[in-house]
């Protein structure tokens, strides 16, 4: 909402308050003034001149030689405007003046003739061409007669104004009009506001003889009123009105159109004018449109309507889309003589839906949508009639023909006045509270502890006691309310076990050299289906109207996103990267639209293990690097010994270098090498990834720590080298050793794997270090040997292992 500082002074005394101060006060009371525009900024030396004579330039067909009276002197000015004529009063940029775009006016010679200045068009004075009235669009501006010659022209063009741009939110719709802003500013400044009741001079003939109204639209039209105005002379509206409209961002058209726009800006009530001679009947019927009913609106567009749209008709066909836009068939033109003026209250939601569907948001529809003063509708009709009598010579027929109540009762709020202090934490007296509410022109009665507040209809946003708390708080100013700390029960808080463990996981990942990434949850459908831990091949959950194919589906895995991160770095000559991410994946649930959400941990590593340094180049990371990361993590979280790694085949992964990660027999993740085809597609070198359903694994937090006393007796270590077929997995040997070593065997560590000339081609040797220990005594050699031999036997029987000689 563009608010003219000058116009506002019609209603509130702003003396002593600069536009900047006013803007600050409005902002601090709840409506943000986004910026202030000074339309005359930079202009200098523009005066009112009178064209005394105007002759053809002897050398140039399109130029005129004008003698212009500037008050103090009379000068010759060469003017190219087609509409210049003797007798006009015009804005003149004198020699030395500055016009728009900081252009300086100098004495000039045009085709041999001296020009002492320039007669200005509105564009040259900085007006936005889109708002310049048609009659001045292609030439100079011409004042009407009241302007004193020689005077500074800027005030007469409202170029001394300041325009405050108010950001109107849902709750400040009452400030979408000048009167509403006046009430607001009056309350903020604690100054009275001046409003004049419109005075309409009516003829004796009742309007009801010319028109009747019926409404058939349920509760969607709470009031429909119309006035009939005859013998109108359509002409440009007066200068003051044109300039106010321009400063409010509305292009002046003609007196009839301008008046309805002006009253909308002033009262907030949208009005519509029909050319009554084109109306086609003496009856207004407001109804829902039929399905597929069509109407051509003022902008020349054919609009297809639905049975949810409110339509103004003449009983047969549509003449306006209610609250949104008029019909072309009844548009007011230069030839219009008789006008039907509509002032109505339409349902905001209905208007919003229609405007949204037709993609036709107008000044009128946005006011209906956000709400307007229910009790100002007939006053607005009167105000328009008053102005049309004065500026369009209208004859106003007697009375408003109407359906519905002109006004409704004011809303009542009853509450203990102390509640305002309780909610704000303030210490107002009853008088202070009542005083602030009265500044807002609310009617307040206090009965002991209870306050009865009557809220004017223009403040439809104020309906409950909390709204009054806000009114008092914002007008008084939150800066004056103290800062306190809550007095309520002090409570202890801590992270949940899972939140704690998640922080540990982040720390462990960082300490293992992985940097944390945050990628998008929405990705392409293809990416969202790739690298899923469980239930591969399930269609991902998708959004209804994606903004792009890139962000159309909910990820089921984080790995594809991390592959993109790796590719990003590779493309920028950063080939050695280690990243991880913790975030939700979205797993479709059969028969339900809503996916299950699960937090996963995923990682990606590629390139060198460490940076090249003076000791030389380090090896590249490999499968065992990524496995080591996962193992270290799970060991640190005390679940490592419950995890099993099993070879697996997964789409997009290397078929021989991928392992499922199992916990209690359930697949909770995977790790391995990307399939060389994927690496090639993304231009990656060998790349290793993992993903873990960390939330389901660790949602209980970590197991309790169980303390064991330090050993009092020594342990015995024995190494064992076993030759097995290559197909035997390390994990199988490990398992058999452990199963047969209880209870004395305390740890098993694989320390050598050998394949080569010293064993058969289809065999390999694996060497383990076994530690035996009894907490109660020192073990004898014989005891250890018994267990050790049992282990060797079991390995031989179960896995065909032979002791290596």
């Amino acid at each position, binding site marked *: 909402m563009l608010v003219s500082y000058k116009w506002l002074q019609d209603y509130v005394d702003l003396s002593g308050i600069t536009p900047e101060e006013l803007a600050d006060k409005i902002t*601090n009371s709840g409506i943000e003034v986004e910026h202030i525009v000074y339309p005359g900024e930079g202009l200098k030396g523009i005066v009112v001149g009178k064209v005394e004579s105007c002759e053809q330039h002897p050398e140039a067909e399109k130029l005129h030689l004008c003698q212009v009276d500037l008050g103090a002197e009379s000068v010759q000015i060469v003017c190219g405007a087609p509409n210049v004529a003797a007798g006009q009063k015009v804005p003149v940029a004198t020699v030395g003046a500055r016009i728009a775009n900081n252009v300086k006016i100098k004495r000039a010679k045009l085709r041999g003739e001296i020009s002492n200045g320039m007669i200005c068009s509105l564009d040259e004075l900085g007006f936005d061409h889109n708002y310049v009235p048609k009659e001045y669009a292609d030439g100079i501006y011409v004042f009407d007669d009241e302007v004193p010659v020689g005077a500074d022209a800027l005030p007469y063009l409202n170029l001394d104004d300041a325009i405050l741009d108010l950001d109107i939110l*849902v709750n400040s719709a009452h400030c979408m009009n000048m009167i509403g802003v006046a009430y607001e500013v009056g309350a903020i400044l604690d100054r009275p506001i001046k409003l004049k009741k419109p005075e309409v001079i009516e003829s004796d003939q009742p309007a009801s003889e010319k028109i009747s109204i019926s409404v058939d639209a349920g509760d969607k039209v709470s009031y429909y009123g119309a006035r009939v105005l005859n013998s109108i002379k359509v002409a440009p509206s007066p200068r003051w009105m044109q300039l106010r409209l321009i400063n409010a961002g509305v292009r002046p058209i003609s007196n009839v159109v301008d008046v309805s726009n002006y009253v909308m800006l002033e009262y907030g009530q949208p009005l519509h004018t029909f050319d009554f001679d084109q109306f086609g009947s003496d009856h207004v019927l407001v109804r829902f449109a039929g399905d597929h009913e069509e109407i051509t609106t003022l902008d020349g567009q054919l609009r297809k309507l639905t049975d949810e749209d409110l339509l103004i008709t003449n009983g047969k066909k549509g003449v306006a889309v209610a609250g949104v836009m008029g019909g072309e068939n009844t548009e007011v033109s230069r030839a219009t003589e008789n006008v039907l003026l509509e002032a109505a209250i339409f349902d905001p939601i209905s208007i919003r839906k229609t405007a949204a569907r037709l993609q036709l948001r107008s000044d009128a529809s946005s006011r209906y949508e956000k709400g307007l003063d229910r009790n100002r509708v007939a006053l607005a009709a009167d105000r328009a009639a008053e102005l049309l009598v004065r500026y369009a010579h209208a004859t106003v027929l007697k009375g408003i023909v109407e359906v519905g109540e002109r006004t409704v009762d004011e809303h009542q709020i009853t509450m203990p006045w102390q509640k305002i202090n309780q909610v704000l934490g303030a210490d107002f007296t009853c008088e202070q509270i009542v005083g602030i509410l009265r500044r807002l022109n609310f009617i307040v009665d206090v009965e002991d502890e209870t306050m009865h507040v009557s809220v004017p209809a223009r403040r439809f946003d104020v309906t409950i006691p909390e709204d009054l708390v806000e009114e008092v708080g914002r007008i008084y100013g939150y800066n004056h309310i103290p800062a306190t700390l*809550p007095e309520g029960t002090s409570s202890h808080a801590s992270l949940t076990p899972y939140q704690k463990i998640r922080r540990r996981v*982040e720390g462990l990942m960082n300490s293992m050299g992985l940097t944390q990434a945050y990628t*998008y949850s929405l990705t392409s459908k293809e990416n969202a289906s790739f690298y899923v831990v469980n239930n591969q091949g399930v269609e991902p959950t998708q959004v209804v109207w994606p903004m792009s194919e890139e962000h159309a589906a909910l990820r089921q895995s984080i790995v594809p996103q991390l592959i993109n991160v790796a590719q990003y*770095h590779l493309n920028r000559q950063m080939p050695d990267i280690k*990243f991880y991410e913790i975030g939700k994946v979205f797993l479709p649930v059969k028969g339900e639209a*809503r996916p299950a959400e699960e937090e996963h941990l995923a990682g990606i590593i590629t390139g060198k293990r460490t940076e090249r340094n003076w000791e030389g180049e380090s090896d590249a990371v490999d499968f065992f690097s990524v496995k080591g990361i996962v193992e270290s993590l799970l060991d640190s979280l005390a679940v490592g010994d419950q995890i099993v790694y099993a070879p697996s085949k997964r789409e997009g992964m290397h078929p021989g270098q991928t392992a499922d990660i199992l916990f209690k027999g359930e697949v909770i993740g995977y790790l391995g090498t990307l399939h060389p085809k994927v690496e090639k597609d993304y231009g990656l070198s060998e790349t290793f990834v993992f993903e873990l359903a960390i939330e389901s694994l660790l949602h209980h937090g970590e197991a309790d720590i169980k303390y064991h006393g330090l050993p009092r007796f020594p342990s015995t270590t024995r190494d064992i080298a076993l030759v097995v077929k290559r197909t035997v997995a390390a994990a199988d040997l490990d398992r058999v050793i452990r199963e047969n070593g209880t209870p004395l065997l305390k740890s098993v560590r694989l320390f050598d794997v050998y394949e080569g000339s010293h064993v058969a081609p289809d065999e390999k040797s694996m060497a383990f270090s076994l530690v035996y220990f009894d907490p109660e005594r020192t073990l004898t050699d014989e005891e250890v040997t018994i267990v050790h031999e049992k282990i060797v036997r079991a390995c031989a029987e179960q896995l065909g292992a032979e002791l290596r000689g």
Partner: protein
Amino acid sequence: MLKEKLLELREQALANISSANGLKALQEAQIRFLGKKGPITEVMKSMGKLSAEERPVVGQLANEVRKLIAARIEEKKADLEAKLLEMKLEHEKIDVTLPGRKIATGSPHLLASIIQEVEDLFIGLGFSIEEGPEVEQDYYNFEALNLPKDHPARDMQDSFYITDELLMRTHTSPVQAHTLEKHKGVGPVKVICPGKVYRRDNDDATHSHQFMQIEGLYVDHHVRLSDLKGILTVFAKHMFGADREIRLRPSFFPFTEPSVEMDISCFRCGGHGCNVCKGTGWIEILGAGMVHPNVLRMSGFDPSEYTGFAFGMGPERIAMLKYGIEDIRHFYTNDIRFLRQFNRA
């Protein structure tokens, strides 16, 4: 005679020891003079021939010579060892300015650091951390927050819908409603709710279709707007410096009444006006307000008994302001050169 011999041996031995240029030579001298077949042993053995008067005198001298030689050998040995060690150390000298073998660590994401800092502050103030689903029911995302289906502040086009009733949550506020419901009408409720949210925006320098929010909620008997102001003052000073001031400006959110925006005094210029605060001296940080009675009621709390405050902030915005980050997309591009800079954040 023996006495002279001993004295002579002493001189020979001492000369030998002092001229020994290595441990080996020293060891040879030791064997030569103190060995079982050495000359002093010989002297001791032949003492039987001496008279009773001479025997103790020579015996004492022999012992003294033996001790002296042994002591000198030990001294010389220590001396030689020290020299050897010195040589060894000299030999082992390295360029200590060469870089060490670093264990490369990764960096936490800046957003995670910011969120953690906020979480820790509020845990200290007695708030727990609540998280909620990112795919949310329309009811919790809007209706339970006083945004009925036809509310003008609600726009289908601003949200990623999955079905008519399901969408990617557009704010973390639905966690408020979930948490209140869980408490079944009994306070206090004190929670911080961080998480990802989604809006139908085109990604550019200042917009992101996915971003983070942190929501705060405190509902109890007698919670006041002044308490909100107090808590937010603590927050502002913690995050932006001890000399920050805050101001509350009236604003509008459907789920709070009254609603406010919180500004902090500019941490760059201290409030005199600069390009960070666009000359105003104040920077907008977050939105807040007193929980709307409809929200309390819908989630099972009696607004005549309970009041509360809520606030919501954007970690990206906080980070961008704090570090002068110019493009919100950096947070999701994950360029290592960006992320590493905030290792200590």
